[in-house]
């Protein structure tokens, strides 16, 4: 697998290191000359100097045969255009873009640059996971596929507590796929009983969370 990474900042440099350690062929592209020289001392021929938004720089790096292009510069416009060109001009099927400012995320989507990864969003998700303010944590959103996986705590006295999985009232387009109890997880059968205090993972069509949470809210309270 041949990987081109645009931007040799902390993210790009470490990605390159990790991928090289996994025996991937990697070319890293950096437009700041000082930074390039620092990185070049370690990565040698695996880093090239140039502006990855310019077509000839991508072509010199061998974009025509790249299996994966990762744009992780500190500039969202650059990341969008590098991925757009990689995909639409050079037919690279797999791209990954870094979103520096989460407010720019819609621009990535509009121009077909997906997946787009935002460190801010990732950290926010982790915070929600550690501090589940609403009792619901979104674990994974497969936007292209219109599916998401969420985690919910089964509240004490909730409608779901003490019921078999098949008896938990859930809207169409949702399914309990895993139960976490005392730090261990299992895949439930239809007759497995859900207990208060369990964490359940559900896969669902995005947008119907509001119909699901009341089943798990403690003492019949309205979940948010």
């Amino acid at each position, binding site marked *: 697998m041949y990987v081109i990474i645009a931007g040799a900042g902390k993210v790009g440099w470490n990605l390159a290191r990790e991928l090289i350690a996994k025996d991937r062929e990697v070319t890293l592209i950096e437009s700041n000359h000082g930074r390039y020289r620092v990185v070049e001392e370690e990565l040698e021929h695996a880093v090239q100097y140039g502006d990855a*938004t*310019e*077509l000839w720089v991508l072509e010199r790096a061998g974009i025509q045969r790249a299996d994966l292009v990762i744009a992780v510069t500190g500039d969202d*416009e650059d990341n969008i*255009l590098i991925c757009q*060109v990689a995909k639409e001009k050079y037919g690279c099927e797999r791209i990954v873009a870094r979103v520096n400012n989460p407010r720019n995320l819609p621009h990535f989507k509009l*121009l077909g640059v997906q997946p787009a990864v935002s460190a801010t969003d990732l950290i926010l998700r982790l915070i929600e996971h550690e501090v589940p303010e609403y009792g619901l944590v979104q674990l994974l959103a497969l936007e292209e596929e219109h599916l998401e996986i969420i985690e919910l705590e089964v509240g004490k006295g909730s409608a779901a507590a003490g019921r078999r999985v098949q008896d938990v009232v859930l809207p169409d387009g949702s399914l309990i796929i895993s139960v976490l109890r005392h730090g261990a997880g299992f895949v439930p059968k239809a007759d497995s009983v859900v207990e208060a205090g369990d964490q359940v993972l559900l896969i669902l069509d995005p947008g119907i969370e509001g119909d699901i949470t009341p089943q798990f809210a403690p003492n019949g309270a309205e979940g948010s």
Partner: protein
Amino acid sequence: MFILIVGAGRVGSAVAKRALDAGHEVSVVDSDPLSHERLDKDQSTTWEDAGGRFTVGAALEVDGLIDAGIEEADVFLAATRGDNTNLVIAQLAQRQFNVPRVVVRVADPGRAAWYAEQGLLTICPTQIAIDQAEQVVLAP
């Protein structure tokens, strides 16, 4: 026509003034409030008194573009100093706001040519300079 111009540099401000003189409605966006001076320079009245609009906003901030009237624009000109900014906002104007005519300044001839093939009206000052220099240098 209603013309929205992003980037009040030499090109953007000059085109804005000419378009206003020609009787069009013109709105200009620039991240630098001081760039407004270019619109007033050599004019008998201020830009606003002459009927022009000016909004301070970063090019990628959609709110600023909406304040400047992108939803009603007939023509959009992306003329900031950054090629990449111009190419992204031009595509936003085209795909998100459905502006009928989108013009984008791109200094890099390679990408100007490719994005022109993708349906953007690109203007490449570098290519124009190359062509002119070639004519002059190689003149018999």
